[in-house]
């Protein structure tokens, strides 16, 4: 069976720079797949291309056997793919509830479904329920991250794209967010996760890819990625680990 989301030989260039070069990634139904990489490796560009925000110059993005290359961003949500963007991007002058309602914008006529989706988000993130009338700009960083993920869930997507959900958060919040990501996945949503926090990203995923300068340099089950020396060195603080072991 074909994978749920299949990115094949994807290339993206803008401003004369090739940001993504011949990248192939697939996501099966029910999986969490992580894409690791340093700043500027092209991780966000990849997710933005799947979401229709940046034009694709080569290769293809296929979602449940439909090619999405030319589909505009506002229609991608309808297809069942939803992005929680890097830096959260909540609408700060709108209330928490308005942010969530916009997440379900494409289904705004189906009030029952919107209510159901909102109940689900509030059960995952009870703090959002408490703050529903508050402006999103007044939330803490962690709460804004929860809102961004919750908002992306409001369209009840089949594939959730998460761009750096741990960015700028305290370790305890990172743990909380990743626990909830696992729970979302357990409820049946497939997740493509882009992260700099390699420990967390490999801990939660079944498979992973490593992106460097727009190219995939390693991929495979997370267990094999974790034991790969080069990856330990570059992303898992390998040198520090070895020093610890030597002592």
């Amino acid at each position: 069976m074909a994978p749920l989301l299949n990115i094949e030989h994807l290339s993206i260039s803008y401003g004369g720079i090739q940001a993504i070069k011949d990248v192939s990634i697939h996501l099966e139904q029910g999986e969490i797949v992580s894409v690791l990489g340093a700043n500027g490796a092209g991780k966000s560009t990849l997710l933005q291309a799947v979401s229709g925000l940046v034009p694709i110059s080569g290769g293809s993005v296929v979602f449940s056997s439909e090619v999405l290359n030319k589909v505009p961003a506002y229609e991608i949500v309808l297809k069942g793919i939803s992005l929680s963007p890097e830096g959260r991007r909540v609408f700060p002058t709108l209330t928490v509830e308005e942010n969530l309602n916009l997440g379900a914008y494409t289904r705004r006529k189906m009030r029952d479904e919107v209510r159901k989706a909102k109940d689900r988000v509030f059960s995952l993130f009870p703090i959002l329920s408490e703050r529903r009338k508050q402006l999103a700009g007044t939330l803490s960083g962690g709460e804004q991250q929860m809102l961004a993920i919750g908002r992306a869930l409001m369209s009840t997507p089949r594939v959730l794209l998460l761009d750096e959900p741990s960015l700028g958060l305290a370790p305890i919040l990172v743990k909380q967010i990743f626990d909830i990501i696992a729970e979302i996945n357990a409820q049946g949503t497939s997740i493509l996760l882009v992260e700099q926090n390699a420990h967390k990203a490999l801990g939660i995923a079944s498979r992973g890819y490593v992106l460097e300068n727009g190219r995939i340099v390693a991929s495979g089950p997370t267990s094999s990625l974790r034991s790969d020396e080069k990856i330990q060195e570059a992303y898992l603080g390998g040198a520090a680990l070895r020093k610890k072991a030597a002592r």
Partner: protein
Amino acid sequence: MHVILEQIINGLTIGSFYALIALGYSMVYGVLKLINFAHGDFFTLGSYLGYTVLVFGAALLTAHFGLWGALTAALIFAAVSLALVGLIVERLAYRPVYPAGRLPAVVSALGASIFLQNTIMVGWGPRFQAYPSELIPNVHLQIGGIHLSLLQILILVMSFLLMGLLYYIVQKTTFGAAIRATAHDRKTASLMGININKVILFIFTLGPALGAMTGIMVGMYYRQISFTMGWNYGLKAFTASVLGGIGNIPGAMIGGLILGVLEMLGAAYISAAWKDVFVFIILILVLIFRPTGILGEKVAEKV
């Protein structure tokens, strides 16, 4: 005491004109970061179209639908026509230059303004035109010693209804939230499934339609319209939207009302000849001391 109350009511009347025009500026600025210089001319064109309906169609319309019917017909005709004109101007003058950045769009807006103004001059002539004088019964009411004309009450009621309606759409509906979200962050708005082009088309029909209805109210209030009046009203409405916080919809309404009242009080107690000066002093002061306007305060984004 009565004098000052009457001046405040006069100020609210002209302030509601400014507010309704300012809404058009602010909605377009909010979403496109473009100052639509043609907006004042939308207002003028609406006023002239309403004038034509009332002068040439009034006899016929009044016979069939009565005075209020004729007035309603003029308002609807002008609003619908200007909604179409707004769409055409957006398509022909703005959409082709969006990719080129903000400055070309502003130049294009000035061009559209000159074009519309000259079109009105060619169509109706360069002279002042006079709105029919006995349109609304010339009834004066006295409420607690304050003189009010029926026309003034009508204008105030209509303006506040229109503002209330727009406030409801923008602040209370999901589509309104989509407009505000688009104004804040277009890219993320499109991730929500919001079609940005539809939002742009909406504001380019609603803004000009509101402007057109305001044009008719101004024609009835002052009785006299000219093809250049859009410039002055446009500039004052623009000031009102800056005062309220440009891009902010409740701000445009508040800014317009405050500006109207200040202008009237300045005219009554300092000098009527200087009333335009007060308006532009306010613009300069706001730009120097509070460029975000009254409601345009930025909520801090946490990183």
